[in-house]
């Protein structure tokens, strides 16, 4: 019993990202307001960014910027966190923001047309037209 608990807490970062991902997915599916759905999408994408950054972490390491005074020919790789996941997630964050921007533009047009942001009202308006 105790070792199950130990196993659980040892990988707490992975559990955290799964919980956040499910929260985001739930918001996207269950909420009726379009803006809340978009926030759910953002949360979903953020969880994946957390996962990537968590993979690259090293115990006792600092951010991947060379400390002043290090000899460029003898750099200890264990002192610095893996930079590649950070780079990949910079790209992913920007892509997420761009998607959110386009989504907001689309939502603005929907609002201009239907006068409401609730999904069920929009669908009933379309069905009746």
């Amino acid at each position, binding site marked *: 019993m105790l070792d199950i608990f130990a196993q659980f807490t040892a990988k707490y970062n992975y559990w955290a990202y799964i919980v956040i991902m499910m929260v985001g997915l739930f918001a996207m599916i269950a909420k009726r307001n379009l803006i809340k759905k978009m926030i759910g*999408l953002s949360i979903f994408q953020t969880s994946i960014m957390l996962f990537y950054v968590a993979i690259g972490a090293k115990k006792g390491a600092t951010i991947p910027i060379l400390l002043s005074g290090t000899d460029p020919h003898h750099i200890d790789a264990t002192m610095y966190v893996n930079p590649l996941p950070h780079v990949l997630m910079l790209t992913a964050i920007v892509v997420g923001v761009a998607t959110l921007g386009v989504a907001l533009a689309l939502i603005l047009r929907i609002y201009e047309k239907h006068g409401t942001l609730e999904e069920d009202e929009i669908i009933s308006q379309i069905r009746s037209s």
Partner: protein
Amino acid sequence: MHAPVLTIIPLLLGSFLAVMAGWTRKSLVYPIGVLALILSSTFSVQLVMQVLSEGTMTYDLGGWSPPWGIVFIVDTFSAFMIALLIIGALATFVTCRDEIMAHFEEKSAAFVSLILLTLAGHVGIVSTGDLFNLYVLIEVAALTGYALLGLGNSRAVLSSLNYLCIGSVGASLYLLGVGYLYMLTGSLNMTDLTSVLQTFPPNASLRAAIVVLFLGLWVKMALFPFHGWLPGAYSNSSATTATLLAPMTTKVMAYVVIRLLTTVFPGGLAIPEALPEIAVVLATLAIFAGSAMAFRQTNIRRMLAYIVVAEVGYMVGGAFIGNRMAMTGAMLHILADAAMTLTLFLAVCNIARKRGSLELSNLQGLFKSMPFTMAAFVLGAMSMIGVPPLFGFFSKWYLLTGALQAEQYPFMVALIVSSLVNVVLFFRFFEVAFFEKPENNPGLLEVRWIRVAPVALVALLLIAAGLSTGLIVDKIIAGVIPASLI
């Protein structure tokens, strides 16, 4: 030497210059677009020649050799597909010129720019050899798609938002899969990944990674049951956008799946055993569902969109059945389907311009008023049904043979049933268009020869490609499938 990247460069340059021209000198926008597409097509044909004579080309971007840098890998099949995509987009661009330039000037520049960027994204997806670069290019193609699909009839914006939600979830799932693979193997490069996975012990995380990766790709290519976004998006948007995107998006994603199955995970390396079986089941359901739902549609474009859903089933089923014949059939079907869908949608674009509405009741007497366009449509429809010697017949034949060899009888039944359903669907349309008398309105807008020529050329291409299928299979496809696949 620089050929793999030269296909994308004119497209990117053209899109940036088109935006600048839209705000300074508006008359240059369309010429820039056409010039970029023509340059790109020339480079792509050159690339095909080079790859056919020299073999697979790799190109290190940034000068860094893989796996430190990003690499483009172009083999015979990718080169051919790149050429097909670019020439198809050129045909669409030339045919639908009036619809593109009908917006006000700065918006036309944005339209041209988005079209070029969509094409650049899709060509990049086909060429790249790096998993994360693939994600970025998928998002480039997707974002431009969301924007382009937002303009159309009154329901276009909602359909585009729907596509945005589902597509973003799919891309994020793909990213998650790539993350797991990187965590396990430490590599993002496709060839490097294969060599690492050869000696990798079986691992639950690896199985989860592969499942999530493929799930993301299936969502993006509208495999049943994730196809909900496709019919709405392609039928509510403007005709130009549907013509541009329908032959590209799903086929390119199917190409990615095939690339992963043949090069990154050859011979079922690291793939959980249940995954191909589930994929074939979903593919069979996709074919049945797509054909059944196409049956109930009265709008031509909506009907074609559901047929595209069924075609995705063909490609995925053929890829996952697991023998050489079926894989060849799937690859042939990607090429064939791109050409057939392009023909049909181009013809519909012309019909829409002439008649306005695309409801079946409005389309009487089309054979008389638009003979060449309808001839091209007939060729495309025959190819979809699978009539020899058109291209569609050969790809279906390979798929059927492969399914027979692997004893996948439900898939075979689905293939045959869908061909019959296609017969009914298209002949229903032909009956209205041929036998009924044309109404007395002279037609909404004229369709000049420059709009009919591309559609006719693409339709003739279907015949030419069908007759030379043996050549295509030997030269282009056979070398790409690993020899271990029987």
